[in-house]
């Protein structure tokens, strides 16, 4: 049963993990994108629609990634180039995504799709316990698990990552070195939206095999909270996403065993946990926050 709970945590957490990794990159560049939920929504719908039309789930993933990136690029264009406020623009863009997906998604409600099946990794899936949890999942979940170390590597060990971090910490230095901090930020946000879009795709064409209006149901906001919970660390985001996914999985699995928990209060737990982590570690966390991101809020100081 613990096996089933953890396997469910991985499966349910992977869409959140994609979005959280994307948001990590975005925030590392100094931009907080509240429309992550929106990127997931357009990603979920685009992936579903393209998978339906082409019959190819991987084409769907590409479409989801492109749609998530496009929405984030719209957000980034407003924020980075037009200097619009990040929080307000994020919410506006989210409203746009809600409306667009509700309208354009009408034609895909109840339509069948050839999505991703679960694909057990040969040999590895035979490992007791761990095999079921980690190696008997859908392909996008594997991708999510691999994406966490990949994003860590990207941010900390590569030149683009250095640029992203520099854009978040010391835009002036970047500028002095002949780079455009704006271009870097724009790219980082769009990249983040792309990952969120793939997260949406996981939800619609790997987990649920269905499209319905507003199907992301708050998972994008969970991802934003998670990034802070994780201290802007991709590996921490992995842990956090499993935790968030685990809460849902635990609750459903326990019900399936005949144990019921107060679901509503349990659902509040991840947010409270994030708050608690922030409070306990606030000084260190704020230190860990990208300088440019603090500046977003700095206005208020």
């Amino acid at each position: 049963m613990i096996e089933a709970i953890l396997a469910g945590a991985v499966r349910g957490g992977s869409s959140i993990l994609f979005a959280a990794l994307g948001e990590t990159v975005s925030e590392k560049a100094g931009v907080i994108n509240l429309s992550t939920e929106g990127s997931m929504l357009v990603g979920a719908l685009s992936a579903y629609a393209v998978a339906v039309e082409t019959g190819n789930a991987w084409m769907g993933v590409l479409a989801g990634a492109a749609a998530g990136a496009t929405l984030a690029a719209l957000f980034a264009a407003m924020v980075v180039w037009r200097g619009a406020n990040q929080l307000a623009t994020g919410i506006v863009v989210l409203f746009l995504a809600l409306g667009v997906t509700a309208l354009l998604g009408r034609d895909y409600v109840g339509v069948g799709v050839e999505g991703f099946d679960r694909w057990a990794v040969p040999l590895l899936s035979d490992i007791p316990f761990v095999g079921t949890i980690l190696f008997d999942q859908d392909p996008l979940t594997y991708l999510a698990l691999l994406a966490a170390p990949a994003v860590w590597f990207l941010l900390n060990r590569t030149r683009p990552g250095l640029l992203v971090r520099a854009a978040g910490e010391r835009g002036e230095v970047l500028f002095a070195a002949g780079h455009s901090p704006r271009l870097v930020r724009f790219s980082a946000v769009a990249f983040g939206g792309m990952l969120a879009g793939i997260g949406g795709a996981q939800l619609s064409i790997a987990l649920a095999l269905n499209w319905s209006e507003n199907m992301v149901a708050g998972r994008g906001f969970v991802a934003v909270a998670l990034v802070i919970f994780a201290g802007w660390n991709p590996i921490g985001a992995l842990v956090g996403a499993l935790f968030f996914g685990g809460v849902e999985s635990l609750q459903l699995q326990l019900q399936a065993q005949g144990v019921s928990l107060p679901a509503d209060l349990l659902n509040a737990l991840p947010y409270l946990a994030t708050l608690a982590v922030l409070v306990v570690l606030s000084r260190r966390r704020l230190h860990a926050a990208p300088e440019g991101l603090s500046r977003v809020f700095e206005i208020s100081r």
Partner: protein
Amino acid sequence: MPHMRRTRTLAALVAALSIALVAAGCGDDEESGAASTAAAGSGEKTKVGFIYVGPKDDFGYNQAAYEGSEAAAANLPDIELLQAESVPEDAGAERVMERMISQGAKVLFPTSYGYLKYAQAVAAKHPDVVVVHQGGLEAEPKQPNFGTYFGTVYEPVYLAGIAAGKATTSNKLGYIVAFPIPQTLANVNAFELGAKSVNPEATTTVVFTASWCDPGKQAQAATALISGGADVLTQHQDCTKTIIETAERAGASTVGYHYDASSLAPEGWLTGSEWSWGPMYTDIITAALDGTFEGSQYDGDYRVGLQTGDNPFVQSAFGPSVTDETKAAIETAKAGLAEKGIFTGPLTDQDGKEVVPAGTTLTYDEVEQMNFLVEGVVGNIPK
């Protein structure tokens, strides 16, 4: 100075909006003129409004109601339908009903459970409009232009439970439910009782998702039940596709609800319960438009089932794996249900407490107040 600038900006914005609105208004005049001539040409049609909580093609509750409305419109050429989909169960629903009335609607069908109090409020305000609510019970004070209607959902669910009880090899059935309301609890109980009638070992595990349609959560719930050993899944959700397909992929059987979704599960589909609202909608609209609604059977809480003959709930077609023996058992049970209801004592709840004593059968009204799970159901009503 900045203060003045702001005031000026505001004035400008107001002016700009006015221009835009006037422009829109001009278009509007021509539009409504054209519309009214068209209406005059084709003779005056009476408007009937339908409000759905989800999209009209959800393979579920809303699609069934939508198709019922279309059937009624086909039966009654003199009516014109006003439809609104995906209307949330909040004050916005009242607004949509008011809007339909202001567009001339004479009969309203708010078809979701959560619309009840808004529907009653609207009915109280518009005595000349008939409002009929799908699935609720009329609260005091009773209004002459308000009624509720429903079928006895749990009868076909009981029969489907027989198919499930015969089909299961693990003796574990799974039921994914949105909220613990009397209607859903009655279904879960009927399903378990049906299964138990042919397979005393069968238990039904119930999982509540706290949402009528969250496909991600549905997939997780279905997987949880299957990994817990359930090999037949059924559900009480508005959108049904995810659970049916998740079960099919995992090799589990499916009992449908709301709609014939056998196309989604060619292997595992057993049977299901679906609606045929057309005749009842037609009858209600006819009564309303004839002016005979008040005092009719629909003015109040109208419930039909096998005992009265014309249950709007019907059983879906059987899937390939259902044996002739099972079909025969279901036919026998069906004939029996017309004699004696499902919730006939002695019935004990999960704790072994007697909830329906021997010799009594719950009335339709009592079923609508149901707040227990029968013995054999695994899971709790969230407190």
